[in-house]
């Protein structure tokens, strides 16, 4: 399926730091954009633990509630994806512990723990590349987001229209941006464990 994309709005191309500042100032558009940007990431945590939508919605609200209280204290916006997923996991485990304590479902909680292990590694890798992505300039961030994070297979003409990049420049620009992303990723402390392929091997 090919997907055409509308031109990116000002809000869509804002950095995480700009969005956080906007949220602190009470800009609802920035808040909505932050939710749109990271909502699926946060929601995936309870879902991968096998929680139903009702419980996942509770955890989703709890994570973003906590975020509203922490907006002022986020020193490194690049760490936001990791903070979100860590907070979502903590809320999930608190929730599962409550369930286990209440209904003596300790074994059920343990089963969830086993089930989520592989999924979590994939999410950890995703969080790492999102953090690296957040460290790129807007042009690269927007291009890689449209090409790899948007649903559906990207239509180069749509991407061209959305970002104002000639179709013929998308390939070379993508390569440059991926190279920068690899460099950003390589600098993350967790990179060797999550991406052993990045090791030089020299």
């Amino acid at each position, binding site marked *: 399926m090919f997907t055409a994309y509308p031109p990116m709005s000002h809000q869509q191309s804002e950095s995480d730091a700009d969005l956080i500042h906007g*949220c602190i100032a*009470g800009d*609802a558009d920035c*808040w*909505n954009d932050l*939710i749109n940007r990271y*909502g*699926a*990431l*946060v*929601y*995936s945590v309870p*879902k*991968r633990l096998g929680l*139903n*939508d*009702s*419980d*996942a*919605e*509770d*955890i*989703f*609200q*709890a994570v*973003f*509630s*906590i975020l*509203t*209280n922490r907006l002022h204290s986020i020193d490194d916006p690049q760490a936001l994806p990791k903070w979100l997923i860590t907070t979502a996991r903590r809320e999930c485990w608190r*929730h599962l512990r*409550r*369930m286990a304590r*209440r*209904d003596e479902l300790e074994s059920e909680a343990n089963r969830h723990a086993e089930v989520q292990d592989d999924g979590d590694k*994939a*999410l950890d*890798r*995703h969080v*790492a*590349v999102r953090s690296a*992505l957040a460290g790129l300039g807007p042009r690269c961030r927007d291009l*890689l987001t449209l090409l*790899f*994070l948007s649903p559906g297979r990207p239509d180069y003409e749509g991407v061209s229209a959305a970002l104002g990049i000639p179709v013929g420049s998308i*390939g*070379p620009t*993508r*390569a*440059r941006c*991926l190279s920068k*992303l*690899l460099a950003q*990723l390589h600098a993350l402390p967790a990179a060797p464990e999550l*991406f052993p*392929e*990045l*090791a*030089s*091997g020299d």
Partner: protein
Amino acid sequence: MNADHNITFETIVGHVTGELPADQSATLAQQAEANASLARMIAAIRSVITALREPQDNPTEAALARARQLIDLQVGVLPFGFEPAGLVIAELVEDTRDPSSMYGLRGEATAYQLSFEADYAEVHLHVTSEAGGNCRVRGQVDVFEPSNDDIRVALRRSGREALIETEADDTGQFKLEVEPATYDVIVSVGLRTLLVPSVEIG
């Protein structure tokens, strides 16, 4: 990481994304078998693109709606007399109803307790159903540091502006009687305001 001076990064990306013509892609794959550096680079790019494309669970509309309202609660719609500058959104720490419930009504118990916590105070609500259909809410606000500030408590029914208000006594205790519904619980301690959004009481 060096691959081969004759092979561009863009070509490798095209190979990984499947956009390189089949014959060129096959040649590159062959070269990679004899060139460990090239093979590592292909693996690294593939791994990063896979991580970017990691499938995620889209949040439900209900989850999005609940998260989006948080910024409104945070910035603009506190009732007159409640101080927005010191506002924090409290986190649920205990709900003796349905173990899966965090926010929102799930249980049908005739008496239950909800506890919420912020960085400077805890709020405990003991809710009992009355014969006439209303709910009696007996509450306790525990401020962590000694304070002589007056404590005001208000319940605001969702979608309405009118408040059901009271003041806590010297020990932080208060009582209210309300119709079963969803409420924002707003607690004012001096210049600080603690908010618990969307608590279903009934």
